[in-house]
């Protein structure tokens, strides 16, 4: 059974990205309507819009939260060839009891790209306040705020040029058993049949070096994500391409004491159609993949460490007639499609067999 809460986002066009803060209590959405909205979950579990502003002069593709030790900081990237860093500032208290007003201000526009900025991600916090962007011209840029109290300074630390246009980027979340920090980027270029996922390592000479391309994945890649890593001995990268891939990466040392990566990709074809997005849960025991067929699939790792699709959620365009088909019982949620307010309902699990 699921409890469902429906939120009318009130964006004027499709949402391209939804991001949650470290605790899952704040939500940021960005859209083709060129605006960003920030939502807060109240004590009763309702999501209330707390801010919205026009952030770019083109569609906003991606949004990402910084770790809370850097404050309330967002970064967005857009078709308008820029990425922007936003910080929420607390205004003066009006009265002693009232909560102070908060608003988001643009701290920096990162305008080095000459093409659409396709993805932006903050680095894991042990690297400091750092972020990476990818753009359609194939360049990865890494920026850092050297003074975390002053977010108006974001010098470019590195530029990594690639031959193929890039669609997505992800930082590895730990360096366990590895000699360096890893960064993965994917390309959605369709003409060539070479590997579309690239792994970069931060070398001892303080440069980012492309160490590997995952040759199994030659189809366009639209999203990838390193899994959070609490206590695992290897690293996992989920890749959305023509199929879903889960790539296990291990650092190995060969006879001459050189470290290199042992990369093993497993393909999951359950979607039977291209996969657009991937998202891990916080312990990397579950994964959501977005198919092209109007379905998301939820994957679970079982106790033998194998991944299995545990549930499928599909979108219905309209209310079903009163003949529920056997293998897709439609939820009993009563939210009208035009509802402006959230409604609560529940979906029942068809596999839940009666116990009595």
């Amino acid at each position: 059974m699921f409890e469902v809460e429906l939120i009318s986002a009130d964006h004027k066009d499709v949402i391209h990205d939804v991001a949650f803060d470290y605790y899952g209590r704040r939500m940021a959405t960005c859209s083709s309507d060129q605006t960003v909205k920030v939502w807060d979950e109240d004590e009763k579990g309702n999501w209330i819009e707390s801010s919205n502003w026009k952030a770019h002069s083109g569609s906003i593709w991606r949004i990402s939260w910084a770790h809370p030790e850097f404050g309330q900081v967002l970064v967005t990237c857009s078709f308008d060839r820029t990425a922007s860093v936003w910080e929420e500032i607390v205004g003066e208290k009006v009265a002693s009891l009232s909560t102070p007003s908060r608003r988001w201000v643009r701290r920096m526009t990162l305008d080095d790209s000459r093409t659409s900025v396709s993805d932006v991600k903050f680095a894991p916090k042990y690297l400091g306040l750092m972020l990476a962007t990818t753009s359609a011209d194939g360049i990865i840029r890494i920026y850092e705020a050297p003074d975390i109290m002053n977010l108006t300074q974001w010098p470019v630390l590195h530029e990594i040029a690639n031959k193929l246009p890039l669609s997505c980027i992800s930082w590895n979340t730990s360096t366990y058993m590895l000699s360096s920090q890893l960064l993965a980027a994917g390309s959605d270029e369709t003409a060539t049949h070479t590997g579309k996922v690239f792994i970069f390592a931060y070398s001892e000479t303080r440069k980012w070096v492309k160490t590997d391309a995952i040759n199994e994945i030659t189809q366009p890649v639209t999203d990838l994500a390193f899994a959070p890593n609490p206590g695992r001995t290897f690293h996992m990268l989920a890749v959305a391409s023509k199929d879903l891939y889960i790539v296990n990466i291990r650092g190995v040392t060969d006879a001459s004491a050189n470290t290199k990566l042992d990369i093993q990709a497993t393909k999951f074809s359950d979607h039977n159609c291209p996969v657009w997005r991937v998202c891990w849960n916080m312990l990397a025991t579950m994964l959501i993949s977005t198919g092209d067929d109007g379905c998301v699939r939820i994957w679970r790792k079982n106790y033998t460490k194998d991944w299995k699709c545990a549930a499928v959620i599909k979108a219905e365009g309209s209310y079903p007639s009163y003949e529920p088909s056997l293998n897709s019982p439609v939820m009993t949620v009563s939210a009208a499609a035009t509802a402006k307010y959230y409604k609560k309902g529940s979906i029942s699990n068809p596999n839940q067999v009666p116990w009595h």
Partner: protein
Amino acid sequence: MQEDQPAIFAVVDPLCSRYANTLTGQFVSGSKIALSAFRPITSNTRDAPTESAGKDDVLIHMLQPEFVFDDPILRSLVAEANSTFVALQELKKRGSKAEYMKISRTYRSIIRACLEKLQDAIASAEEAEDADAQAKYQQYISIFYSIECVWHLSEILFLDPTPSNAVVPQLLDWIRFHFPASERMATDLLLLGREASDNDDYWPALKGLILQGQVDVARALLHLHPQAETPHFKLTDQILKTMPTYSMHGATSIQKFRSLWQYWLTDTERKISANILAIEPNLEELIQLVTGDTQMWNTQIQETEYWYEFFPGYLFYTNNACKHFELGNAANTWLSRWARLKGHNSNELQMKQLDRVILSLMENDMHQVIHAIQLMADNQWFVTHLTDLLYNAGQLQIAGENQVNECIKLRDSLLYDFGSSLMTRNSLWQLGMDYLDHCGQEGQAALALLLTKIPFRTEKQALKIICIAQKKGFFEAEQDICKIQSKKSLDEQRYGNALEWAIRSKDTLYVTTIADFLLNHYSKTGDMLCPDVIANIGAKMFISPRLVFLVKYFDFYQFYRKRDFLPAAELLVNLLESKITPEYFWPSLLIDSIPLLESKDPKILSKETCAILQHLETELVPLIDKKKKRLEKYPDEPINILKDYRIENIEEIINLLRLACARNLSRAIIIENTVMG
């Protein structure tokens, strides 16, 4: 297998089906997910408003798997079971059978207490005419009733084996608890005494007792009959009394028992076929049941709803010494007989989940049992606790090449999932910790991570989490929370708090950042932000050289304000010499020396005055030149050190300083030489 197909759910969202759109999902926290319509984008997508712009509603669906433990009654079940779980872990797999039995019974009594509370809740919901609550509690009862039933049977089969391995007497206990009707009737009738036999329930109760193998109670009831002294009743009593029973403790050998039984059975059957009891059909029926008469039992079977209802009773009269390993076969034989008589085609037998689990248990198919009980809508409470108990008692047996290893993995993964699901729930996170604490390295890592993910709103909550992190030795988690709290305070302009939290984090870099912030603010405004906190830092200042500088500078600032100029001057000179002055602070520090230098009676000696002059020329002047050059190149950069809140122009500062030094030097030299002379 049907269960292995993923479950399919549907959400209604028209925007998902427009053009080439689809549905996408994100994890929120725990197992909560957010779904929304998604438009595929590639790096050569052109930017234009979509055809649905402004037409279809843009929706976000928040989905959360139902969580039963938000209910107060079930919450107390989780809490009580948690302490039993902890007690079980303390046995460290070396407990005695009696100790594991005690744990198992404690779990079960917690469930039973919970069932009673749920019954009361239904009653009060009925009174309040709250149909939703009634249905909810009814559902919980059916879940936890099933759990108790399966747990009880597991306890009998796996934790409480008799020395002889015979299971029948315990199965009778189990069935008596779960089908208590006859026993209840019998209790009422026994209270009626001599009038019992007039009651309509008298014979049904007797038959029910016999069907459940409760021979002694049945005899007691027979004694109440007014005709108890007649030959027929006496004969019946005699038959029941002489019925041999197989001792659980294996006092009689099985061969001896079988021959005794056979003798008794032949004798009894002979009596029945001689029609001795024909004039008392009620009594004859009872005896026919006791002898396992096929026809008689078949008639009874047709009246049952559950396949296992009369199974233990039948075993009692036909295979009293049945051992655990024989139970699976016996159960299957009985089940097909039951299905045939009930008119089910055994291939299509629609068994309910509970029926199936009971069969799997009797077949000793733990793999199937664990698989099935995971589907209970109890958020994995039962499967986690039962598996863990069996594992601890050394009774968990599942198929697999590497058995022992598999069992540990299974048990650990259940604990991991259950613990982490509790930890991502606001009010239950402390209970969840105990489960993660007992499932190895990965559990510890998850615990450290999830601890930092608990959304704390107040300082008190933060301190509580930190206290736990300290106990567990999660240094990083503790540090994270302190830094987050520090940044939060800073944003809220509670600077003293921010500094205290930063110091608590013991992160040198972070403390330096905050100290920098305070010094910077001071050098720009002349306003010391949190004097009380700085004054009380004490030895903790050594965490960061910058903090040492801040504290020492603050001491100077205090002396100066109290017009205690001599120690102020001494401190200032020390600071200038300290080599820990941050670049940006040089102008401020040197400007501070001007009034001391200009004092009519010199506060600074000639040697030290020279030193100040030296710092001016070797530190500040090059710094200014560097900054000016940089500004030529990057005119947009903030001018920082070229400006002070006291004196606008840096050139003026340098001139003033040089002059002050010269004047003080002359005064100091005169006085020093005079005194010396």
